[in-house]
């Protein structure tokens, strides 16, 4: 009957699968990546199961609030006293009381003023980075190529059967993507956070450029459209060894017989560039914010949680792409007077909504 749903539930009832989604250092990662790449059916099952799990985790994250820092400290203070190891410093409790009371009064007054001033203070965007974010796998199981965004705003055209994986928020010191199959990358420049692509045999280092990488078992190559990339053999020390620099209209390929990289001129076309244009056309004019957020969720492959009823009357004009996910969120939340929080489970958008026009 609901065979698909049963299979998804079977994955969620498998400890190893759940660990892979929740634990960035899961030792089952390579197993599930390989499993997901086995067939289109597997990729889609893993995708559904992962999304459902992340949605539950995100609900659980946001439903309960964390204990405030002061309470955490106070509770530990009581524990220390309980075990006969009280903290030595600090005997100023009466003062603290006075200070707390003063703050409370200020807040009350401030609250009244804010209310009269119709919400002058904007909520601040916050980012919770307490643990590395889990890995996302995106596989193109369609018959044609598929365009997608990475969290930093870089765009990727995945050829049929190609697969990329990266960390959900791409928030490490490097932007790192694993690739199998053929893909065209249009990378947003960011010298602070260099972009690396790992294939079976090669490592491609990018500072901002567009190029095509092929990594489909027998053939591994990089062809550059604009800009410049460095290509290394996997296992090479990236700091020490010389890279093959690949310029526009050049192609660098891995020559298996010699186990080395060969660079030659490339006269072929980049058909993917026209695909990129299509992505640019993702423009919303006075669109309901829910529609925009759903598109964002889909193209950046990241769960976004918001209250649809609250933001019912909010409309935005916006073009997707060229911008990191964070930039897009800033623009959106500024427009609708809301705030966002990023966590390893996804994004939460909160606010008071918009008045009816």
């Amino acid at each position: 009957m609901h065979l698909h749903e049963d299979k998804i539930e079977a994955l969620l009832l498998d400890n190893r699968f759940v660990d892979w989604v929740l634990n960035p250092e899961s030792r089952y990662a390579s197993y599930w990546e390989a499993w997901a790449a086995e067939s289109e059916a597997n990729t889609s099952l893993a995708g559904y199961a992962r999304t459902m799990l992340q949605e539950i985790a995100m609900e659980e994250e946001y439903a309960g609030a964390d204990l405030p820092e002061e309470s955490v400290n106070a509770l530990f203070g009581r524990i220390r006293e309980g075990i006969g190891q009280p903290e030595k410093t600090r005997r100023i409790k009466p003062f603290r009381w006075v200070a707390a009371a003063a703050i409370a009064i200020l807040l009350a007054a401030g609250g009244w003023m804010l209310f009269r001033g119709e919400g002058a203070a904007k909520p601040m965007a916050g980012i919770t980075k307490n643990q590395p974010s889990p890995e996302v796998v995106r596989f193109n199981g369609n018959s044609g190529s598929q365009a997608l965004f990475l969290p930093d705003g870089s765009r990727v055209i995945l050829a049929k059967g190609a697969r990329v994986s990266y960390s959900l928020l791409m928030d490490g010191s490097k932007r790192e993507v694993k690739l199998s199959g053929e893909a065209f990358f249009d990378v947003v420049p960011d010298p602070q956070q260099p972009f690396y692509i790992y294939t079976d045999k090669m490592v491609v280092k990018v500072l901002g450029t567009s190029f095509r990488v092929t990594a489909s078992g027998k053939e591994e190559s990089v062809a550059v459209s604009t800009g410049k990339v460095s290509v290394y053999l996997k296992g090479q020390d990236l700091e020490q060894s010389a890279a093959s620099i690949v310029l526009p209209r050049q192609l660098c390929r891995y020559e298996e017989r010699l186990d080395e990289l060969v660079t030659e001129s490339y006269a072929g076309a980049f058909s993917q560039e026209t695909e990129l244009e299509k992505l640019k056309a993702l423009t919303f004019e006075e669109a309901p914010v829910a529609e925009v957020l759903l598109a964002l969720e889909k193209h950046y492959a990241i769960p976004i949680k918001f209250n649809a009823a609250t933001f019912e009357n909010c409309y935005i004009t916006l073009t997707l792409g060229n911008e990191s996910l964070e930039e897009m969120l800033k623009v959106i939340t500024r427009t609708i007077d809301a705030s966002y929080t990023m966590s390893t489970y996804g994004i939460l958008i909160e606010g008071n909504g918009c008045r009816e026009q």
Partner: protein
Amino acid sequence: MDWIRMKSGDLAAFERLYRAHVQPMMRYGLKITDNPALVQDCIQDLFEEIWNTRQQLSDTPYPRFYLLRALRNKLSKALSKQSFVSNGEMSLASGDQPVAYVELEIVARETETQNRETLRKMLDGLPRRQQEAIHLRFYDNIPYENIAEMMDMNYQSVLNLVQRALKALRKGFSVKAPRH
């Protein structure tokens, strides 16, 4: 590791353990009772006991699991004393056929359109033990066999419990699996 250091009397390691686990413990505690003060009291008791009996404690590679399990025991004792929840109810293992099922189905059908509040409502509408198991598995990353141990159920019953919960939640997710 901090657990081993703590056992040998390292107070800084003890504090690190506390800070690394207090938030998940608080969250989990609030799945069992609605009384945050009680959860804090139990956490305090628990850490004091851990420190005072540290030499007798066995090693554990998973302090999270150890701490959550111990917290549950404490809460369940405290609650049965206060008779908020009877012992019988606490150990009412797998047989809790959810009353809220029918209602959930209706809610789900009404909000077939994009309504992100649905999943939260559905989670809140689950029987308490299902909520607890879902939280432990999908938030705290506790393996099913350990959940079974904590909740005093057998392994298969935990799987059944979570499976029932997942079926009830089906319509709450933003993604809809195609039906072949």
